[in-house]
């Protein structure tokens, strides 16, 4: 992606290019071990219009590098390959299945005088392995959420089925990748939790328990408000990827019509139900129409003996969304949907307005003092809770940060340092211009603070951060 930054007074401009996806492919070397069979190894390749031999060459190169580096460290093969112009990321999600993502390094095109072609300067060091490595992992997790593992597809229908599934999924998914805005949060893959008082939380628990009891088909439930999680009945790893899907794909798709005007054709069909504001985000859009067909997306979550396949029902009333997961072996009928609608709709509507009320009361009480004046990112590995005052609107298409990408890069570097050791650490960095960046790691928690204090010294910065911990995180034990 191209960003224009006017720097030269003479009117000639420097062009800044952000990282972009060059290619993405999935292969299994055991499928074509002999000469002449190389094409069989390739299960998926993007962009598809590349010439066959070039595909084979690229795949072969990756295979060779991985094999080669294995001789030095059999247990931990190469994770990435850095070259001047691009970087390749390798990931083996299942035995002998490899996913490779090739990203073009960010670069600056500096115009030259006298008609010479512009000089291109590649900023190889701007990219962080951890960030894009995490992106590749997430690609696999997302695929697995909707399709199960690669081996499952192989068992069900051999290589042909697997290739079909990969094509169908990645063709769409890769279009949603916005590599230019990937950063530390992708490394975490965390979940944002909605702050709630005890009484309302207990009411939500009560609601979930009662619905699960009345509709015994429901195996798991998750409850979200305003794109933030309140309750999850799923294990962490499953919830993590489901959360990402909901907040970056499903909810944005359905919120835009809601925001549309009254007469807009995009406005969802409100089934004339005045009793409640509940509606299905997945499944039947109009319960009143008996002819309309519907289906629920199927997801795969981990179970004691591998994986289980579930229908995903997402039901929303105002800002509250409840996800109900039912075994895929059950056929969900219109009657069931109607039953769910009449049971859940009114209760969820009531809960949503309760939560909204509580939230407004809490904000009024805590007042402007609690308004975050600090720019920070917090993450807890234990429960995957993340909080960021740096990132603003996060949708599928855009993720705005309020700080310069250089600073985000520093955060990423600090995170890499933290990952190298087990002990608790604190790292303070003076960045360019007026910024100080502080990273704290305590137990399983990480906190990154960006301070804009020009003439502060180390001790003052330290004090500031301690103050932040005391106010914003007063019930969390941070070792000072």
């Amino acid at each position, binding site marked *: 992606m191209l960003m224009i930054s006017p720097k030269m007074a003479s009117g000639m401009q420097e062009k800044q290019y952000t990282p972009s996806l060059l290619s993405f492919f999935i292969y299994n070397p055991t499928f074509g071990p002999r000469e002449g069979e190389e094409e069989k190894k390739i299960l998926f390749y993007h962009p598809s219009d590349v010439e066959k031999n070039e595909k084979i060459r690229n795949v072969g190169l990756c295979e060779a590098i991985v094999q080669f580096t294995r001789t030095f460290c059999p247990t931990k093969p190469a994770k990435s390959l850095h070259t001047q112009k691009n970087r390749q990321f390798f990931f083996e999600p299942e035995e002998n299945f490899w996913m490779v993502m090739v990203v073009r390094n960010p670069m600056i095109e500096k115009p030259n005088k006298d008609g010479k072609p512009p000089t291109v300067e590649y900023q190889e060091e701007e990219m962080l392995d951890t960030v894009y490595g995490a992106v590749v992992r997430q690609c696999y997790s997302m695929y697995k959420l909707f399709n199960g593992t690669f081996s499952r597809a192989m068992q069900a229908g051999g290589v042909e089925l697997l290739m079909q599934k990969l094509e169908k999924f990645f063709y769409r998914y890769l279009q949603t990748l916005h590599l230019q805005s990937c950063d530390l949060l992708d490394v975490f893959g965390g979940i944002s939790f909605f702050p709630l008082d005890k009484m309302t939380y207990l009411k939500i628990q009560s609601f979930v328990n009662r619905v699960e*009891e009345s509709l015994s088909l429901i195996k798991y439930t998750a409850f979200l408000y305003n794109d933030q999680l309140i309750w999850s009945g799923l294990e962490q790893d499953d919830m993590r990827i489901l959360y990402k899907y909901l907040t970056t794909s499903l909810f944005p798709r359905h919120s835009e019509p809601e925001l549309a005007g009254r007469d807009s054709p995009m406005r969802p069909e409100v089934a004339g139900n005045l009793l409640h504001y509940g509606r299905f985000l997945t499944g039947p859009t109009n319960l009143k129409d008996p002819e309309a067909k519907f289906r629920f997306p199927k997801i795969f979550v981990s179970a004691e003996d591998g994986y289980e396949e579930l229908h995903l029902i997402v039901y929303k009333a105002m800002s509250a969304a409840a996800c109900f997961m039912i075994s895929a072996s059950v056929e969900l009928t219109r009657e069931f949907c109607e039953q769910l609608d009449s049971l859940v709709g009114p209760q969820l509507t009531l809960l949503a307005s309760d939560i909204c009320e509580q939230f407004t009361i809490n904000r009024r009480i805590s007042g402007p003092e609690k308004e975050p004046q600090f720019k920070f990112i917090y993450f807890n590995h234990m429960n995957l809770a993340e909080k960021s005052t740096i990132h603003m609107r996060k949708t599928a298409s855009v993720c705005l940060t309020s700080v310069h990408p250089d600073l985000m890069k520093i955060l990423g570097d600090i995170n890499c340092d933290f990952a190298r050791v087990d002990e608790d650490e604190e790292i303070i960095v003076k960045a360019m211009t007026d910024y100080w960046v502080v990273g704290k790691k305590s137990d399983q928690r990480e906190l990154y603070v960006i301070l804009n204090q020009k003439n502060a010294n180390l001790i003052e910065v330290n004090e500031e951060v301690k103050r932040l911990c005391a106010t914003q995180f007063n*019930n969390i034990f941070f070792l000072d």
Partner: protein
Amino acid sequence: MAEEHYLELSENPVQFEHASSVNNVFFDEANKQVFAVRSGGATGVVVKGPDDKSSVAFRMDDKGEVKCIKFSIGNKILAVQRTSKSVVFPDKRSLKLLKSQSINVNWYQYCPETAVILLSTTVQGNILQPFAFRNGTMSKMSKFEIELPVVPKPAKLSLSERDIAMATIYGQLYVMYLKHHSRTANSPSAEVVLYHLSREGSCKKSHVLKLNTTGKFALNIVDNLVVVHHQTRLCPEHPPAPVLLLHRPLVFPAGPAAVPSQPPVPCQLYSSSWSVFQPDIIISASEGYLWYLQVKLPPTVNLLQDKGKLMDFLLRRRECKMVILSVCSQSAYLTAGSLPVVATVFDKLNQVYKDYLEAEQSYTQAMESGPSRGSAAQKRPVRTQAVIDQSDMYTHVLSSFTERKGVSHKFIIAVLMEYIRSLNQFQITVQHYLYELVIKTLVQHNLFYMLHQFLQYHVLSDSKPLACLLLSLESTYPPAHQLSLDMLKVPNNRPETRCCSTRCLGRSSRETSDSGEAPPSTQVSTARSTWLTSSSCLGSRR
């Protein structure tokens, strides 16, 4: 097959010599004493009261047939009536007329508990004039009319003394009228109409209890329940049964159950010599027994299917605690499919609990703020059996419930959380042992992700015992370490005991040379100084 009866006669009735040609039996409702007068008193008068200690025997001259005989309170003064117009006091005393009132009276009734006399006036007899006796004075209350089902023409006495009874229900005085035919043409059934006589003197119709049947009735009040005894006119051999009615007019007859007689006293139920007295006395003069009518609560549990209504009923009864707790833990009740019912029951119980706690609290505050300044002295609130607190619920219901086999663990947790939710709703502080029960159950079933979320949202309130429990879970569930440290950070949870501090300093002591006995704050500041030194060595990074 023995049916479970919910009404029974007292086990040890007061026994007296039964009525015969030589023995007359009199009953004084005020002192609940039975007088057995032999031969007009010449061969002896035996007086028996509610307890044997007050049995008195004496002789008096036979000066004619005794119409009525009573003692004053404490058996100090004896009064005997032999003629229709005079009363004799065997001991010489002086008598002073305090007050007189001139009214045409058909009959009267007296309620000793409230010291109110009710006079039937007018030709039809349905205008009742009450008088209250208080502090040695007699004050007239406002009269009221009993609605008759049929207005007789020409007017004649249509309201008999047998149709009226006075009773105290929930501390209020009521006049109960047995209306044999309802005015509505379609239903010939009988009703009991209650008129509430308030302290200020005004009286109004307050409740109608529909009996849905006809026949002969008698009324008793037991444990604030209106008991209607019913004898069918049509089949005298059919064992008549009392119909238990609940006080709230919303309710309905709960189905008859026979009243058993207590062995070894065989006697015929509802024999013709049975007399019913207020509030809860049944006397059989021909056999010589006086019984108190009692309610047995456990069998009543099956009478009401709606558990909410059942709770309302039980919470108002005297000896209700164990019955309520057994209802709560009955298998039929706490099985899957009943979460809303569980929630309702908990809410009803906690409402009563909360009321008691508040009364206690205001009493304590009043006591602490010094002797009352002009306002009436507050009485210490009485804790009735209906107050079911957390320790009751834990001991009798919840701890055994969590061990029950065959119940899904999700349901067990759901019930525990409902109880905690209900306590929170009534702003009652949850005891830590309840939280411990939740944690133990979650850990037992490996529901760690639930535990983590509950702790994250502080649903299980922070406390020292809980923090220690979490520390002990570290080997099974490593994140418990982090959670317990957070909990210990709250100032009043700082550990004082040695074992706590050594464990929680397990990690931080790596950075320092101290071995941990000091509380975290000291350790923490030592660690800090080490780090400040090390971080000052960092240069600036790009």
